[in-house]
């Protein structure tokens, strides 16, 4: 019981001790995380649109139009991601 208590206290207070000692962790911004998630989803959408075309669910014309639209949206996401890095 005492051992469990001691280990639990050590585990829980470790970050508080480290911060006191001056260590700081780098943190990605929430905006970046949101944009990364959106970019990942957009890439998946582009891949799936291509698969839809190859499996006969989208005609070549429809796919090209959709693909261009999705890529434009992906480009916009990349722009916004780059903008986060600008000072």
């Amino acid at each position: 019981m005492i051992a469990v208590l001691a280990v639990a206290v050590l585990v829980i207070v470790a970050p508080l001790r480290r911060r006191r000692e001056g260590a700081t962790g780098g943190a990605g911004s929430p905006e970046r995380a949101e944009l990364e998630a959106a970019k990942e989803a957009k890439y998946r959408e582009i891949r799936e649109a291509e698969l839809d075309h190859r499996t006969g669910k989208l005609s070549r014309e429809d796919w090209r139009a959709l693909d261009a639209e999705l890529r434009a949206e992906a480009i916009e996401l990349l722009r916004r991601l780059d903008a986060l890095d600008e000072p």
Partner: protein
Amino acid sequence: MLLAGRALLILALAIALYGIVASLYGARTRNVASRGGLDGRAWIASGRRAVYALTGTLLVCFALLELAFLRSDFSFELVATHSSTTTPAFYRATAVWSSQEGSLLLWVVLLSTWSSAVLFITRNRAREIAPYATAVLLGFAAFFCGLLVFLETPFAQLSPAPIEGTGLNPLLRHPSMMIHPPMLYSGYTLFAVPFAFAVGALATRRLGLEWLRNTRPFALAAWLCLGIGVILGARWSYAELGWGGYWAWDGVENAALMPWLTGTAFLHSMMIQERRGMLKVWNVSLVLATGILAILGTFVVRSGILESIHAFGASTLGVPFLVLITVMIVGSIALVVSRLPMLRSEHRLDSLLSREAVFLLNNLVLVALCFVIFWGTFFPLISEAITGRPASVGPPWFGRFVVPLALVLTLLSGLGPVFAWRRATAANLRRVLLVPTAAAGVVLVALLATGDVAERPAALIMFCLAGFVLAVVAQEFWRGVRARRAMSDDSVPRALVSLVRRNRRRYGGYIVHAGIALLFVGIAASTAFQEARDVRLARGETARVDGYELTYVRPTGNLDVASNGSLEKIDLGAVLRVRRGGGDPITLRPERSFFAANDPSLGSISRYFEGEATSEVGLEAGLRRDLWTVVSPDVRNLLAIAREGDRVFEQARSLPIGERQAALGEALRRLVTLYGTEQAPARFRVLVSPLVSWIWLGALVVFAGGLIALWPAPAGSRRLASTYAARVARELSRA
């Protein structure tokens, strides 16, 4: 050990409460440096680590209880009332969760384990949402730890400790029943993760895709575990309960099915939000509702409320659970309403001929199914509360609503894969629907030509729709493989593996749809075309049921003695010789097992026939049909002799205990031997159910598909993403 267990539970409660405070304080001060150089991030990390510490503490707690069960330490009241030295070791290990207290402990152990997993995985992501999610998860943990500390402690002492325990409920001595509760609880507790992250996203106004991305694997794992739990429960019911069915629309079964249905809806609708930024209100509402239904499911099972509204008052858990559920409902509504402006859709539905539209319909059907089941499950309570008299609804009531909705759902599960996202053209749809529609037509014609299927139109429609779905899935795989081969020159098997590996979510999902179609075929066939007969047979007599000839060869009797020499149960059964057509005969051995009642006043011998009794099913399972039979032995003669024996043993009280036990064993042995020579007829319930095995096979296919969809993307897919990233980046540089 009892004291240590109780102390560890108090420690767990304290850790959970500390973690809530640390996480919320850290979230509020994350960007504010305080005195001593501590900022909010340190408190957030400490709160997250409180979850890890909680998991460790609870695991030690659980191990202590397991040890007590395995050692048959009857100073633990829980062990004495739920196990015995004669209980086999496997069932002793799993008897922990046959009790209320053990179940609650298992629930919080699983919750803390999954919480640790998600918080470890997202420790460098979702930095704003995670502290709130941590607080919510720890809130659940604190609630359950509080129940274990103040109301239902598993570490209650029994003094003096009895020499023997009462044993595990015989109905629970079935392998699937021992895995079924942990799977159900894993499902319930895993659904707490998306719930917590949805609350975090709403609290922080971070309502984009990040919370969806972080919680999707846990939502899928929850769906998978809950589904496995539900199917194991159905299998147990079919093989163990002796009534021949796998689903009785029982409140406890329904309580597990409801979050599974809303979870299924969420797994589909989240894809629409990922792609189009639509249905944000719907998605958070679905996740929150699923979390609430998961807690409601636990409440229903643990409180016994569905037996009667009065059970609610008698249960110590009723009020706390009701308070928790009320807080969850009111809090969820308040959060969603307060964030409505931020939950506006980014796009509108482009076309009704799109996968989004099919998914939306599928969501409406799934939620309608959930509502029907909710109403049917809680109707007795509502009725009792209003009129004072409980009025329940039975399987026919559920069938009236569930059957049409299931038909529509099956159709949609076939239509979804053939529609493209955003907009499908009529010409493309005609092309991709041709083969599946033809397959459904062939099924229709074949069934109409071969038998009396037309008399059951719902089943007939279901078979055709299942043919449609299976053809759609086969066509999708074939077209995908063809496309893959056009790019790579791979062999067909290699192209198939490569296709699935690179598109796990899509093709895993298609496999799930195929499994659901198989499962629904099994349900439709076994429900609509089951042949049931109750027959009374004397030795040597034969009955004919749906093409089977069953001959009662002889009765059987057996004393099941545990390893320590004490009597476990009496098995009285029958040997049945079964023949179908001109085939070879097979032998079935259904049995009825009698477990002794603990009350000695029932008579030294009679008490062996007055306790729990379970049926061992005689089952001949096949892909085309199952022959299922249980026996109801005629024990009237044995009971008369047992009563005489009771009187003899009553007069022989002065005998030393050892001699008395030996005489009792001999008397029971003779009784069982006598049954083996019995000429009295036995009653049999015989069911011939077509395609039941398709339910279990379909479930296996569903879970295989679910696992494929859940499995992390391979390195190849990540490389593909990088390739796309490079291409998009090149276009960006040109733009």
